């Protein structure tokens, strides 16, 4: 193997980052950081340890929910700090863990999940339509609409709308009715899967075939083969 791997494809190095520096305000304090790096990398750059606000670093886990504001704009927006680039004049703070209440439930034991929503999350129907949750969602989910769909029992729509939900929880602190929409949607989606979705017949059949030893003959045949023979064999089709 030649040693010619282009070194520039390796870890982030300062010289690989754009040399231009910008001023940002992190938790109220100004810092100079390289333009274009993510908000999380900006924290590392200025010497802050991040344990609570970092997870997958790929925009899927919701650990790095962050409030930010761009220069001269009064609007405070939300983002995932691993997936947002700094720009000059930006101001940002991590969202601390928000003490939203999660109901606990045993989905299989629920008799009427659409009705049970109101005992598990009695605040769900109290939405006052302010739409702040939708505006707070960094995944651009129509959260308010989702809460109403859940209340009206359209769990299927909820499950589809919230497939993008990373559970960052930024919809909860803004709710004037104390609803945690992400938790309501998670309940509705799981209930949709457990109670209102067809059982796939093909899967049951396959499990039965395995239990009945339907593939035993094929296993017996292939497990005797050498690596070379295995390389060139296929399983008999059903």
């Amino acid at each position: 193997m030649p040693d010619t791997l282009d070194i520039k494809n390796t870890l982030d190095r300062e010289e690989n980052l754009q040399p231009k520096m910008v001023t940002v305000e992190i938790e109220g304090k100004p810092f100079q950081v390289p333009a274009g790096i993510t908000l999380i990398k900006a924290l590392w750059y200025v010497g802050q340890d991040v344990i609570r606000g970092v997870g997958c670093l790929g925009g899927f886990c919701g650990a790095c929910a962050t409030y930010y504001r761009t220069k001269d704009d009064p609007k405070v927006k939300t983002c995932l700090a691993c997936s947002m680039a700094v720009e000059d004049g930006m101001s940002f703070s991590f969202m601390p863990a928000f003490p939203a209440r999660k109901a606990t439930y045993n989905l299989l034991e629920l008799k009427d999940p659409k009705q049970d929503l109101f005992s598990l999350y009695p605040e769900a129907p109290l939405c006052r339509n302010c739409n702040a949750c939708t505006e707070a969602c960094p995944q651009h989910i129509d959260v308010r609409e989702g809460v109403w769909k859940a209340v009206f029992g359209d769990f299927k729509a909820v499950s589809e709308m919230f497939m993008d939900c990373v559970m960052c929880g930024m919809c909860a602190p803004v709710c004037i009715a104390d609803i945690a929409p992400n938790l309501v949607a998670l309940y509705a989606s799981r209930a949709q899967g457990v109670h209102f979705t067809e059982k796939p017949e093909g899967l049951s059949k396959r499990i039965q075939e395995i239990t009945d030893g339907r593939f035993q003959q094929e296993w017996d045949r292939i497990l005797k083969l050498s690596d070379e023979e295995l390389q060139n064999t296929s399983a008999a089709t059903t």
Partner: protein
Amino acid sequence: MELTEQRNVVHQTRDARRSKSYPKLSPAERDALIQKYHPDHRAHAYRPIVFGPNAGQSTVAEVATLLEGESPVPADLNLTPDYSVDVLVVGGGGAGCASALHAHAQGANVLLATKLRLGDSNSVMAQGGMQIAVGSDDSPVQHFLDTLKGGHMKNDHQLLKVMVEEGPSIAKWLLELGVLFDRDADGNLHVKKGGGSSKARLLTCSDYTGLEIMRVLKDEVLNQKVPLLEFVAAVELLSDANGACTGAVLKDLDNNRFIVVAAKTVILATGGIGRVHIQGFPTSNHFGATGDALVLAYRLGVPLVQIDTFQYHPSGGVYPEQLVGALVTEGIRSEGGHLVNGKGERFVNELDTRDVVSSSIIRECEEGRGVRTPSGRVGVWLDTPLLDVEHGPGTLDKHFPAMVRQYERYQVDIRKDPVLIYPTLHYQNGGVKIDVNGETPVANLFVAGEASGGLHGRNRLMGNSLLDLMVFGKRTGILAAERSKSLPKSSLTLEHLKRFRAEAKRHHVSAGIISPMVLPAYTNK
């Protein structure tokens, strides 16, 4: 030349490329390509491990250094337990949650410790899907054969047979918990084709398969009220006079205090090692992927298997800079996306195994057919707009909403323009040696998921990791719970650590580092 100009070659050659197929390589051609270009074959990056169960065997220098590292635990630590449990699960990803739920269901007293939040893991990022042979034209035997060929015939046959046979029952379990897999019109599970597989076998939840499974498993762990310790990392195991595992020393990352846990059984489910940045590669892995289980098990005398082989996923981001190393889902290639070099040519069958595709990308870049980004990185094009051309407008929006969003954040529209990619460190192919129940050669120590080794051979197939997590999470959880019922309360000692330190001294190894790493040191000090 600006990237905007360079990518025109992809648009200009699209129609001509559509009409041609690119052949897969023969086994001999694959081997030759991998030998020459795959990072697993760069001799200078490897060295023998000096002492311990794998002494003399070669692995990458980064891993060898971690294994020979010094424990943060002082020899005279007070081992009065803070917790006494039947089953200690270390790790809060897919394998950890599955282990904990199954052990809890058996009535065991479980404690789950994780160094970040519950669910923060690689599992949550898995986009491609989960391989399970549910199709009527498919079988577990064919799943076995495909995986074996993908792993270069080096997979442990017994582990692999268990995984493919238990797949369908895992799908049933997840459906019962409410996981919403994509369906066909007739209600059956929809299956997609993945790289290296001869049949369509990937169960998916659009391109959020891992996220959907983890949302559900996390919620269930909370509903079942499994006791949790978050922001708490395992830094050493405990053993009794016979060398069996009897618990662990944890470290609370908030106050840096040690926590001693007496556990009749311990399940390590700490995942992979991407954040160690082997050979300087960027990684698709989450923040906590630092290979902790390898170190913990090794110090207790457990051998590792195939620890010289890692998976470099073909499509890591190269541009924009914020997405360097981030994963671009293999699903794009599964649905027909072409890889295109700087000259507008295809150079590999995109559905060949990951090691083959990665090696070919490295070859193109090293031989000057790559594309250079403004910050000096090199990559090749992945023709995303082709999917909308082939399957109709809206295909990307419908099948790859996460990826559309991932790039939209940086003003790149993957529906209109191709993206630049280069291999990224993605998966630890080998790991801690386990048997079919996930138990290590040291009694009462279990390992589940990416931290374990042997199942995937020298190259893991797409979609086999999520299944691995669920199958071995289940098996370890059930067996650990059962085992704990018959075990008496045992003694807690650091005898193994004393032996390990003596051996380090005998070999004149003075480790420069403390291990396990726990979290990468990215902070400028």
